[in-house]
Structures are given as structure tokens and as C-alpha cells.
């Protein structure tokens, strides 16, 4: 115990003080200034009071306070001279506070009297008082005969009040319809993030491209697409989707169907014999999807495959959507439209 450790040196002082305190208590009890408590168990009295009266500590505290003042004025000076110098500003104000802290702690430990005293705890519960509260409250219902009726009516009114108060919450959001419908439909061109349309020839093997819908809102959750070109050896789309990948170019929603982060990691084999197939990975929780297999999940927490967008190439060589997403994009919810894959 910490109190037992350092005490041998102080024990004579503590004992003397304990006697003094006991004497004081006895005098106060005798003179009626302090109510006599319950008889204390035979135990040491830890009360003590030491007056350090150290001139050296007072000097140190004064020096610290003055040093703090230098830092404090320094802060104002730095602010006026170069208000953007975050390091100097922080050093000045932080230094001032740290020096003030040192001054206060040293004053608290070495300058002012060090006292250890004993306080009695309140019993908190006094039975008679608890009974009195109940009596006073019950007296307020004196002469009221149909309490059940009033309580019931009050309960109904209370429920109505809460319902009425909670109703405006509904006006916070629009009603649920077409959650996460996207701007992607047949014929919409794929733009890059600076607004230029993608030519099919722009899409190279081994890297991914981010595409946004022409004429659509780029800030919409369903706007972003991942576009990659895959060589035939990696392209194993489900039979129904064979026409979705002109020239081996496939497009998927960029939004992870786990928790709505944008997928921005693309793994492409650099040395075929030892590498695994190309995959998209979400940087938030590392759900990993195969673009060559219709967005099938191979690792991570996502509960669904990555939604795929059918593509086509128009006569001028531009990439266009060949239709809408075949399932809902974005994170799953109760009534989300799930794909078949």
C-alpha cells in the first residue's frame, strides 16, 4: 500500500500529530462544537498537517510564473509577427501552460500546507426520511377517489404527447423510393473524372479507370464505375453476360456492396506463372472481387458480388452503357434487389 511505504521516517511526526488531532477532537467534542460520532474502531488516525514553509520553493514558483509570462507574451508576439507559424505558436502557448502547470503543482506540493484529513461519509439512506417523502407525496392525493381512471387517462395522453412530438422526425428524410437508382442506362457514355469521354481504345490492360455517366450527377453514389480490359485468359463471365464485355472491357460499380466505400485497389498479375487472377479490392475492409468472373467475391466481408454494368462500343469507338445495372448498387439493406450471380 502506498501509504504504508514511505511512512517510517515520518512516523514520529504522524504519531505526534495524531495525538494533537485526537486532543483537538476531544476538546471540540467536549465543548459541543462537534457531534460525537459512533465509537471509532481501534485504528490509526491518518490525519496530519505539515507546513513546509520553503522559501526556495516559493522562489522556484515565482520564477516559473515569470517564465510562463514570457511565453504568454511571446504567443501574442508570434501571432502578430507570423500568425501562420503553427510550431512557434504551439510552443509559446503550450510552453506557457506547461510552466503554469509546473508552478501550480510545485506550489500545491511544496509551498502550501500539506494536509491529510479524515471526513465521515454520509449514510445517504435514512429510513425515516424515505418514508416521509412517500407520505408527503401520497398526502397530495388525499380525497382523490378514482386514481386508476386518472392514471389510465394520463398514460394515454402521455403516449399521444410522445407520438406527436416524435412525428416531425419523419419530415427529416424523403420517403423510400428508388434508393440508389443510378444515371446509368442504355447509351450513356463513360466519361473520365475531368469530363472527357472514354474511347474503347483508351482502356489498356493492367490498370483500372474510373468512369462517370455523361449527363449524370458525379456526386451520386452510383455514378462511379471501375473499367478494366482483360485478356481472354482471365475473362470467364457467366453465360448470360457474354455480350457485356466488348473487346474484353468490363465495367463494375465502384461502390463496394459491403459498406459503400469506393474501390480503389486493383491487383493485376505481373508474373503469370505465380500470380493469381486480377482482382478489385476495397481499401476499407478489403473485400476482394474478380472482374473476370462477374464481380464474384473471393475474400472479405461483403455479402454480395460487385454489380456489373453491361457495356458496348459505339460506331465512333466510344464506350457506352448497354443497359442499367442488373442489380442494386451500394450497401445491402432489407429490400435491396440482389443479383443472381
Amino acid at each position, binding site marked *: 500500500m502506498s501509504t504504508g511505504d514511505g511512512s517510517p521516517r515520518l512516523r514520529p511526526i504522524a504519531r505526534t500529530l495524531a495525538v494533537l488531532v485526537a486532543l483537538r477532537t476531544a476538546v471540540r467534542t467536549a465543548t459541543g462544537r462537534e457531534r460525537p460520532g459512533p465509537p471509532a474502531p481501534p485504528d490509526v488516525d*491518518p490525519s496530519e498537517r505539515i507546513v513546509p514553509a520553503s522559501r526556495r520553493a516559493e522562489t522556484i514558483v515565482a520564477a516559473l510564473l515569470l517564465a510562463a509570462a514570457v511565453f504568454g507574451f511571446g504567443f501574442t508576439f508570434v501571432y502578430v509577427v507570423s500568425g501562420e507559424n503553427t510550431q512557434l505558436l504551439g510552443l509559446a502557448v503550450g510552453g*506557457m501552460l506547461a510552466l503554469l502547470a509546473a508552478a501550480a503543482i510545485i506550489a*500545491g506540493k511544496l509551498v502550501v500546507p500539506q494536509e491529510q484529513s479524515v471526513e465521515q*461519509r454520509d449514510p445517504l439512506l435514512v429510513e425515516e426520511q424515505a418514508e416521509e417523502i412517500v407520505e408527503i407525496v401520497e398526502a397530495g392525493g388525499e380525497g382523490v377517489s378514482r386514481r386508476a381512471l386518472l392514471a389510465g387517462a394520463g398514460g394515454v395522453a402521455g403516449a399521444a404527447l410522445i407520438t406527436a412530438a416524435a412525428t416531425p422526425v419523419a419530415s427529416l428524410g424523403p420517403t*423510400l423510393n428508388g434508393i440508389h437508382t443510378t444515371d446509368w442506362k442504355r447509351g450513356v457514355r463513360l466519361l473520365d473524372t475531368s469530363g472527357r469521354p472514354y474511347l474503347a481504345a483508351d482502356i489498356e490492360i493492367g490498370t483500372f479507370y474510373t468512369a462517370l455517366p455523361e449527363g449524370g450527377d458525379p456526386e451520386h453514389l452510383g455514378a462511379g464505375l471501375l473499367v478494366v480490359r482483360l485478356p481472354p485468359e482471365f475473362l470467364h463471365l457467366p453465360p448470360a453476360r457474354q455480350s457485356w464485355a466488348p473487346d474484353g472491357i468490363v465495367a463494375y460499380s465502384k461502390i463496394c456492396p459491403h459498406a459503400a466505400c469506393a474501390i480503389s485497389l486493383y491487383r493485376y498479375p505481373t508474373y503469370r506463372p505465380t500470380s493469381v487472377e486480377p482482382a478489385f479490392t476495397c481499401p476499407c475492409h478489403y473485400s476482394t472481387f474478380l472482374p473476370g468472373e462477374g464481380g464474384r467475391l473471393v475474400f472479405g466481408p461483403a*455479402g454480395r458480388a460487385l454489380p456489373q454494368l453491361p457495356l458496348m462500343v459505339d460506331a465512333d469507338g466510344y464506350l457506352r452503357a448497354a443497359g442499367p445495372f442488373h442489380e442494386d448498387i451500394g450497401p*445491402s439493406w432489407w429490400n435491396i434487389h*440482389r443479383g443472381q450471380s
Partner: protein
Amino acid sequence: MNVLQRTLERRFLRGTRWLEQRLGAAKGIKWLLSYVFPDHWSFLLGEIALYAFIVLVGTGTFLALYYIPGDSQVIYHGPYALLQGEQMSEAYRSVVDLSFSVPAGLLFRQAHHWAADVFVAAIVLHLCRIFFTGAYRKPRDVNYFIGLTMLMLAILEGFAGYSLIDDLLSGMGLAIAYGVALSLPGIGAQLGYLVWGGPFPGSSSFLPRLEIVHVFLIPGTLAVLITLHLVMIMRQHHSQFPGPGRRERNVVGTPLWPAYALRSIGLLLAVAGVLFLLGGLVQINPIWQWGPFHPYLSENGAQPDWYIGWLIGALRLMPNWEPAIGNYTLIPNPFWGGAAFPLFVFIVMFAWPAIERRFTRDHLRHDLLDRPRDRPTRTAIGAAFLSWVMIIFAVGSTDRLFFRLHISYTAQIHFWRAGVWVLPILIFFITRSACRSLRRTDTHPMRAWQGTVVRRGPDGSITRLGDSADRTQSRPSEEPVGTVPAESER
């Protein structure tokens, strides 16, 4: 000098009389000045949280004077060259401007961010102290519930704070929050729509809503709860560790005036000083590096604040369970890690006092604290539970191990899916036996020494004076406190 002192004393008396004529509060003031604080370093953890909150309110008020919760897209033309001509939201621009164009703006923003991290950390450490010493027992159970509520609010508050900036990190965090909201079985989509005012990234009223939550609703609630927390502590007095003269019905320590007040003010100033030094000298959340958020962007290097890590870890560790019947997704996957896991952790913590009472049948009032070793089972359960949460927290950084040390990410996840259950069980048994052994030998885990004391005589002979085992037995004051009879409540 004496004259001056007497004049000052007279002035002070006149001031006190002025106050007394109006309030008559002498009795309360005297009570307050002699209010006793037990001295133990672990009692300062809660104070650190309180003082971090004060710094948060101060620095946050400054930040609120500059922040604009606008989602309209603008083009940046400020002093930061790398963002020149970049399209971004008004909110993000206002925070970049605050950081680079407002004198001392970055200092306040970084000090605020550091303070938030320290605030939550201090609450968690304080909670550990409360748990392992049994300070949550009657009469402090209600205050323990208030503290847990404040921990929940503090985490929410921190998340709302860094989400306001609308940089890439906040956008990704909000996207995940949206995913978790939608994952609540049945009501998720409606709830997400209500909160965001439409599908993610939400309507233009979303940022103002988040701001009012961050600067008014949660801090206001926290302020009320902190007041309640302190008033209840003052009424019941602090708990204390057992020691000479310390009993269930008294409290031994330093009176508020003058030593404790000075030391506590010193702690406030020290906390503020450290936070401002950190804010000035140690960069945190460099929002200009992440860039503005757009739903189609994300990046890998930005990590959220530490107190979100346990949720990230849980979301990442979870296998891809997503039970669905036809088109009805019963439980979307983010629910497990993002909602069920934190709910479970808090439900267990809220229920703990009742669970313990059920097994110990101890309904008494306790004002003396337990040393962790004296309650081996409780300490072991706490250590196991804490390690379970901390392992999941650590799993949130497995990707850093992969990027820096090239340890396979998938292998790490597969390993921890088992480890997260096995390791806490081991920790339970190790902690319990360590506690039992410490209680038996009554050595201090850090201060203990092992050996024999000998004296070498003038003739070179060596006499054995005793060894560590004798020493502990020769000091009755260090007997295990478990043997001290507890005073029962009358």
C-alpha cells in the same frame, strides 16, 4: 508588508461579506473548501478526461467561428498550391482555409483533434480503473452508467467531428456509417434516409445536421452528464483504497483547499499545455493530403482516429455472412461488426454490476476499493473481455502490417478469426492465476524484489539476515486486504 497583508485580508473579508449578504453560502463554501480527495494517481484519469473536455469546448468554439457546413461544389483558389483549381465542397474549403489562412487556425484545429483523442483515451483508462477496482458497486452504480453513456457519446462526438470536414477521410468514414445504418435489419434504409436526408452522400441539409449534433446536441448532453457525474461523486465522496485509518465509512485524503486545488489546477494546465504543444508541434489529420471527398474516390493511407479502430477491425474480421431469403436481406453484413459488436460490448458493460451481484450476492454499499488481485475472477473476466475488444481493435491495423512488413493480409485475417476467441480464454486463466499468486505472496508486481539480505562481517564472514519471503511476513500492514473485515451497511 504586514500592513499590506492586513489590508488585503480586510478587503477579502469585505468581499466575502458582500457575497454572504446575497447568498448566505458560507456553510456550502466551507464544506467545499475542506472536501477531501483521496490521493491515488489512478484517480486523475477521470480528471484528465474532464480537462480535455474543457480544452475541446474552448478550441471547438474557435473552430465553429470559421466552419461552413456547405455541400455546394466550389473551386479552390487558396494558398495551398497542390489543391489549386480542385473542385471541393464549401465545407472542406472552409477547413482548408482555417488551416492555412487563419492565424493560429491550424494550431487550434490540431489541438482540438489531439484533445478529442486524449479525451476518449482518458475515459477508457478511467473506465478500466473503475472496473478493476470494483468502483462501480453501490452506491456508484448509477454514476458508472452515466460514465458509460458519456463514453458512447464521446465516440460518436469524435466521429461526427472528423466527419464534418468533408475531406476524403471523412467521406469514407461516413460511407461506412451509411452502410452500417442501412444494415440495421428492417429499419436500416429508412433510418439512413432520415439521417442523410436521402441516399448517400445525402442532401445539403446533412452537414448542417451533423454540425448541430457535433457542436450542440452531444456536447450539451455531455456537459449535463458531466455535471451530474461530479455532483453525485461529491455527494457520495470518492471511493478510496484500503489503508491505515481508511474505513468504509470515512474518506482520507487531501482537502480541496489549498493543496488539492493547486494540484488539480496544475493538472488542468498540464493537460492543456500538452495538448497545445501536440497541436503546434505534432501534425494530426493533414486534411490537405487526403483531398476533397467525392463518392467515387477513396484511398488507402488515411487511418481513422484510434477510437474508431475497434469497429474497423470488427468489420474487417467478419466473414461474409449475409443471410437473405429471395430479395429480403435479413442481416446485411456491416451489421455484425458495425452495430452488433459495439452494442454487445456496451450491453455487457451496462449489465456487469447486475451480473456480478447475481453471482456474489453482494448487495452492500462499498466505499473501499478492491485491489485487482483480490478479486481474481472479476479481474480475469475484465482482462479477457478487454483483450477480446483490443484484439479486434488491433485487427484494424493488419493492413498496415501487410503494407509495411508484407505479412499476408488474408493469412492474418484467417489467423485472428480463431485467435480472437482463443487468446482471451488464455488471458482469463493467466490473469486469474497471476492474481491468486499475487494475493498469496502479496508481492507488488512491479516493486517486488526476490532475494536474501546478508551482512558481511569484518572477518569476511557472511550472515543471512532474511529473505523476501520473511520480509513480507514481517510487515503486517501489507497483509492482503481481502482479510480486512468489510463493514456492513446498517
